[in-house]
């Protein structure tokens, strides 16, 4: 394996980790505020569909992005109403949202385009184009740093850079602002937040809405950045991998960066080497695909550093009277 191959694998890891990272951060906001969200998958799928549809109809990827965020937000609202306002079971609501997205995207896609749930292929202004960072071409010939800068760091779509910027931004918001402190408190001990005179409901809705926006970005990137259009079930379990990454990351932003990079790398390696040969042992691609889930179970089991979720996660808050 030479240097260029490594760069190529890392480059594809970065592309593949981007939707995971955005969805993982989305889940982080929601779960840190005490609202479990296993509907990340459905929100991403809905966002991918709305983004691709509007981009295909208008030819403008930015309108597509807005539509993607709107689609994801709509499902977030459903989740909020069910799990915050009506104090329903957050897990069941998440399951419902996944199915709702899975069915609606095909129904609406078939109605609008008649292509069996696909959208037409996007091209030109209907897709996010790759950004060449300044001096990328001039620096390409510099050994080591050149290829890293020109091929790995440069040449991604805007949403990739947005996703990476979201990591420090999330860290700052959660740990350095009043809003972040309250958000974390509401996931650990909502009664104390309530006693301090801050609305638990409003905070949780805000967290769920941020989650919706980030899932919207993730879905829009899938359909208009990573691929050229929407196909049925295109999220393919990424929402659940993001959920796994969130546990792996122990609900921290920098952990999310590391965990999603690891899972992106695994996917990139599995894509490049369907049957990986290490010495006499051949590792089938199915094993590589299942590895994120296996690793998460091991982490959950607490054998390698324990992952402790926010204490009030999953519990609706009932205000005292």
């Amino acid at each position: 394996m030479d240097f260029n191959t490594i760069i190529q694998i890392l480059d594809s890891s970065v592309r593949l980790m981007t939707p995971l990272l955005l969805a993982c951060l989305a889940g982080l906001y929601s779960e840190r505020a005490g609202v479990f969200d296993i509907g990340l998958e459905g929100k991403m799928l809905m966002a991918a569909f709305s983004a691709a549809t509007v981009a295909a109809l208008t030819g403008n990827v930015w309108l597509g992005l807005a539509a993607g965020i709107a689609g994801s937000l709509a499902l977030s609202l459903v989740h909020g109403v069910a799990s915050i306002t009506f104090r329903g079971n957050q897990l069941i609501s998440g399951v419902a949202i996944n199915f709702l997205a899975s069915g609606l995207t095909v129904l609406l896609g078939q109605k609008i385009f008649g292509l069996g749930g696909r959208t037409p292929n996007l091209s030109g202004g209907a897709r996010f184009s790759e950004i060449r960072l300044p001096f990328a071409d001039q620096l390409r010939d510099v050994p080591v740093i050149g290829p890293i800068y020109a091929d790995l760091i440069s040449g991604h779509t805007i949403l990739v850079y947005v996703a990476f910027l979201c990591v420090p931004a999330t860290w700052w918001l959660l740990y350095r602002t009043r809003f972040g402190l309250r958000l974390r408190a509401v996931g650990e001990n909502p009664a104390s937040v309530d006693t301090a005179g801050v609305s638990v409901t409003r905070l949780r809705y805000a967290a769920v809405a941020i989650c919706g926006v980030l899932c919207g970005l993730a879905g829009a990137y899938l359909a208009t950045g990573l691929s050229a259009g929407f196909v049925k079930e295109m999220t393919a379990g990424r929402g659940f991998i993001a959920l796994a990454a969130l546990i792996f990351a122990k609900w921290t932003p920098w952990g999310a960066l590391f965990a999603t990079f690891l899972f992106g790398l695994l996917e990139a390696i599995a894509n490049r080497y369907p049957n990986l040969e290490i010495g006499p042992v051949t590792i089938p691609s199915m094993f590589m695909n299942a590895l994120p889930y296996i690793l998460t179970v091991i982490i959950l089991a607490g054998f390698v550093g324990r992952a402790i979720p926010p204490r009030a996660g999953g519990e609706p808050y009932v205000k005292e009277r």
Partner: protein
Amino acid sequence: MDKMPKWADVVLTPLISLFLAFAISGLVILAIGESPWEALKTMVTGALGSSYGWGFTLYYATNFIFTGLAVAVAYHAAMFNIGGEGQAGLGGLGVAMVCLFIPWPHWSLALIAAMIGSALFGAAWAYIPAILQAKRGSHIVITTIMFNFIAAALLNWALVNWLRPIGSMDPASANFPASTHLPKITDMFAGFGIEWGKHTPANITFFVALLACLAVWLLIWRTRLGYEIRAFGKSESAARYAGISPTRITVIAMLISGGLAGMMAINNVMGEGERLILNNVEGAGFIGIAVALMGRNHPIGVLLAALLFGFLYQGGGELALWTSIPRELIIVIQALVILFTGALDNMVRMPLEAFFLSRRRRGTAERS
């Protein structure tokens, strides 16, 4: 005395929730420019209008009874088993091994062995999440989700590298020998000289599913273990105080749940497919969630809900055949049923409760 009558809680709330779910489904059909009335008519004729339709409806319902019971049993122990999909898939592996590797003289022996094999494999797949929840406190919902994906990868590997006959490109096992083929309901009717549902997959497993309903009812409400499961589900601390071991109940409830989900495989793998194929569960594990929620985790409710979903499934197939509505409409209906009966339960219950309370208050006021 600030409760509404029991019949309202058990019957009225789910019915209203269901009505809301179907009303919105109707709106969705209107939104894609089709007539909900025509759609309903197509579905009823296609699924219930002929013995052919019933043959499929009962076949699907059989799958959903098993997965619905699986979710229900876990729910009584206050656990949400989303792993039915993976457990049923592993059950399929168990059935395939029983049918392929042991020569059976008669289908009845093969059926009993397949029941044990599928239940063992399904239970084994539920065991790891259960023990992790009981001993290490890992959340069962997350682990069972992860185990669904791991099961899919494992089955994929087993079919491609192990069970696939030499020379075949298709990731599927060899056909099961004829002596393991289960009698179809068609054959049973033919025994009485009645022609019923030709070429339909409904088979003897349907009766096994009915027995499973009865067994679950006996287990939950008529045995000591069932009492312990319910007590644990209502209050873990009270159960612990009464000398019930949380680890034991968690593991046993999940083993039963996984075993029930696994037993679905005798219907779809042994009864219908007569070989193991990729993705043989086809989402039935998830439909079990909707079925259990709608059936209020009671075997009779599960049976009725499974029949309803069997009807929706077969009707949805007919819709895709005769109208321009894709069969994914069923997934939307399923989602809405889960949403309204499961997550938005309080939206229906709160106004109902207020209604009954105000009526009672008026009643007492008039009497005094």
